[in-house]
């Protein structure tokens, strides 16, 4: 924590709250070694609207926990080597290499130290209602998302908008975001429960 404080202070003083979005993204990543938040997710397309919500935890670099509570329970854990998905009602655990899994959750993207800048072309996308937006276009075309927009306020990520090539828009809103909370290492490991089938790639 002592080590982090100067970084956080530097980030906070170097950038006024209304700084452009790319600068806010950098300050946000540099200023949060760990992160916790709740999220709500709305997926919409022609004739479709699906809502979900849950909890997010991140420990940089590369560890994350993305947990859906509603409308079904599904736990996604990235332990920096493998991605685990546990779906309770399916009674199924899936484990795959994390490299292949970046598109599976925004948490994977956010947990990296520079994954967003490495894999996406970033562009300022203006301000609206006190939120500074950036748009991110994937450098590789096989990415499942055509474009991502991220909205920041006071050097904190408040919302993400993801568009895919099939016309789906996923809107994610973060709330109760805490920077640098103490998170137990066990939050970022996964042991399959007894009696649950495990498949891997």
């Amino acid at each position, binding site marked *: 924590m002592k080590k982090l404080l100067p970084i956080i202070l530097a980030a906070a003083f170097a950038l006024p709250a209304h700084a452009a979005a790319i600068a806010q993204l950098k300050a946000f990543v540099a200023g949060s070694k760990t992160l916790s938040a709740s999220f709500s997710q709305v997926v919409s397309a022609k004739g479709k609207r699906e809502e979900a919500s849950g909890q997010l935890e991140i420990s940089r670099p590369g560890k994350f926990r993305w947990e859906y509570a509603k409308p079904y329970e599904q736990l996604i854990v990235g332990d920096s080597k493998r991605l685990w998905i546990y779906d309770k*009602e399916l009674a*199924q655990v899936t484990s795959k290499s994390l490299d292949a899994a970046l598109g599976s959750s925004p948490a994977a993207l956010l947990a990296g130290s520079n994954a967003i800048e490495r894999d996406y072309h970033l562009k300022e996308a203006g301000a609206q209602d006190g939120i500074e937006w950036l748009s991110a276009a994937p450098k590789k075309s096989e990415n499942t998302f055509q474009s991502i927009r991220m909205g920041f306020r006071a050097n904190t990520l408040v919302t993400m908008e993801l568009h895919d090539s099939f016309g789906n828009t996923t809107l994610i809103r973060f709330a109760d975001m805490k920077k640098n909370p103490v998170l137990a290492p066990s939050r970022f490991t996964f042991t399959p429960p007894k009696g649950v089938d495990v498949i891997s790639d």
Partner: protein
Amino acid sequence: MSRWLALGLCGLLLTGCATRDVAFRPQAEATRPRDTPFSISGRLSVKADGKGQVANFDWNHDAVRDQLSINSPIGSTVARVERDENGVTLQADGKTYQAADVESLTQEALGWPLPLSNLAWWIRGQAAPDWPQNVSADGVLHQQGWSIRFVSDADQPGPYPKRVEMERDRLSIRLVVHAWR
């Protein structure tokens, strides 16, 4: 008291607390079942030769048309199967595949056959009409080379199974529906 505590912990912890699974009992139908249109969202897992994956899906079905989208947990579509009177197309990885039926198309594009037309009945906990069938003593339906087990939640029985488990050769598919519309 301890039961309530256990329930509370299940809600908080997600791990280790299984719901009480029982066999789904379809309502007896005196007449031939009707192919009512449905629109559902759920999750599925596929295991072929020990390897596999899990995905979300949306499925719009009526007697002449199907649209099945395979999605990531955050809602982006990875593959889409569409069936109408002209045949079947599958879009994935920027490519479009075409075939006469869903089984051969998914076999070609995904490496495993998805029996979509009969699954439209199985997902509702029914045997497909017009196909030979037999049901073993443990309630497992045998049809089209598949063994299909319908699972219900003992505490929340519904008009449809909570989970459908299908097995055939070295392939198994599980589906859970979380929204019927």
